[in-house]
């Protein structure tokens, strides 16, 4: 069963002069095992949207269900693992072990079960066991984010929801997180991420939801997305489109610098071959 949002609207500061509509009449369905990207500009309502999934916010109208459960139920908090942008905002334990065990202990799992889950989560984020006794605050930004990720994975969620998970990380940290997310998705967990970092995420996304001013302005596959006018694109894809527009016969549906390089070289050799034949 999926996450379903039906005609959901949400307002901040309702019934005050500062009332603002964050989401208007949103319909969305997220299936198990998908890799979904929620895109949109700052203030479009992306972060509000994901907070509705696990009951951190309640819709002012409309209905949210997760596997037919109400989002406020504790079980939903277990099924949806949530990771926010600033991992430093949630780390508070003296060791990485305690940090990852925090979730499972909150759900009342036994010591043994918790330990098992911590080891499993640690492996999922590609840390070795020497990490467990380290002070979370001595870690780099990317490592902190992986600890936060492990903390969510220790609950063995069916859906992993992330809010700008790679913003503010150095390139190495970004790659670590992206690789980890790909692995998690391949093991069958749905990954839903809010991002404006198309460069990093675009190659991974299977489905894209674009939010503009609180409404869903596009949802569909990556292929459909690329055929849509006026949508934000990764810089390299824009460049390939521009090349094509200027008469270089490249395939514009390309999302990474490596692919672009390959494609340009392919076209180059093609052109050279043509020239030689003439």
């Amino acid at each position, binding site marked *: 069963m999926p996450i379903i949002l039906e005609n959901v609207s949400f307002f901040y500061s309702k019934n005050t002069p500062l009332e603002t509509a964050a989401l208007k009449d949103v319909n969305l369905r997220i299936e198990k095992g998908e890799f979904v990207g929620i895109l949109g500009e700052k203030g479009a309502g992306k972060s509000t949207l994901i907070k509705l999934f*696990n009951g951190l916010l309640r819709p002012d109208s409309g209905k949210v269900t997760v596997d037919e459960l109400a989002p406020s139920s*504790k079980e939903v908090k277990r099924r949806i693992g*949530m990771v926010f942008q600033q991992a430093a905002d949630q780390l*508070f334990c003296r060791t990485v072990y305690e940090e990852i065990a925090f*979730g499972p202990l909150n759900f009342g799992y036994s010591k043994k079960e918790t330990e098992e889950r911590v080891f499993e989560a640690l492996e999922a984020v590609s840390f070795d066991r020497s990490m467990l006794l380290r002070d979370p605050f001595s870690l780099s930004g990317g490592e902190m984010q992986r600890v936060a990720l492990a903390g*969510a994975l220790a609950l063995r969620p069916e859906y992993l929801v992330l809010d700008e998970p790679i913003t503010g990380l150095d390139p190495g940290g970004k790659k670590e997180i992206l690789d980890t997310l790909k692995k998690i998705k391949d093991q069958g967990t749905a990954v839903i991420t809010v991002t404006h970092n198309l460069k990093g995420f675009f190659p991974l996304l299977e489905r894209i939801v674009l939010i503009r001013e609180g409404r869903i302005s596009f949802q569909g596959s990556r292929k459909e997305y690329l055929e849509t006018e006026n949508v934000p694109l990764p810089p390299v894809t824009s460049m390939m489109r521009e090349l094509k527009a200027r008469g270089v016969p490249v395939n514009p549906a390309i999302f990474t610098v490596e692919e672009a390089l390959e494609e340009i070289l392919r076209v180059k050799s093609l052109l050279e071959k043509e020239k030689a034949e003439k």
Partner: protein
Amino acid sequence: MQEPVFSYVPGTSFLHTLDPRTKLAAVMLLGILVFRTESFFGIGVIFALFIALASFTGLPTGIFFRAVRPMLLFIIFIFLAQLFFTEGKVLASFWILQPSIEGLQNGLRLSARFILLLLFAALMTASTDPSAITCGIERILRPLPLRWLGVNSYELATMMNISIAFLPLLFERVERTKAAQASRGMYFGRNPFHSVPALVIPLIRGIVRDAEELALAMESRGYQGTRRTSMHELLMQKRDWASLFALVFFAALLLRF
């Protein structure tokens, strides 16, 4: 995004246009008045005054009551302490607790006073730009010889300005951390020994980091804590003096009866 607790709502009402010094003096005066008024009738009259002033701002009265919410626990504690630990005619008896009639009265009075104090403060902050408040405080403190204490009124004003400006950000930070911990299955309120560190540790670390960054940014722009010129010099208008006079008159009248 954070719901406003003590935040400024821009407007053009009568209260908005008063000099911040007038409003500061009024809040202080009302504070004294609230704690000098013994009778429930008097407290009721002050409450009516609040409702009247609140309606001047054109804002729904409900938003001022949000200022009370964070202090609710404290107020309930005071009420219960008064209720059970005041000697007097015993109202009823539960186990070792014996609430008295005098205790009930004291408790109600004291909690009403705190609530009124918060409401008036909320009224001021809702109708006054934070920078105008600090400007007013700075102007009031300027004649005092604070130098002997190693500060000056400008530094003090800047400190207050920053604290007020960062308050909403602080709440935002609290919300962020709360959301992150709640997603990991923490339930606030069930076990404070468990949940308080999970909230407070990331919070303090974050605030210290923010403060360091802010100090660096300010110093880089030449801040030295000395006298700075201001964009708008404050000027007491006729309506300021008139409002203060009216308030003093009201206070005298109320204390008389």
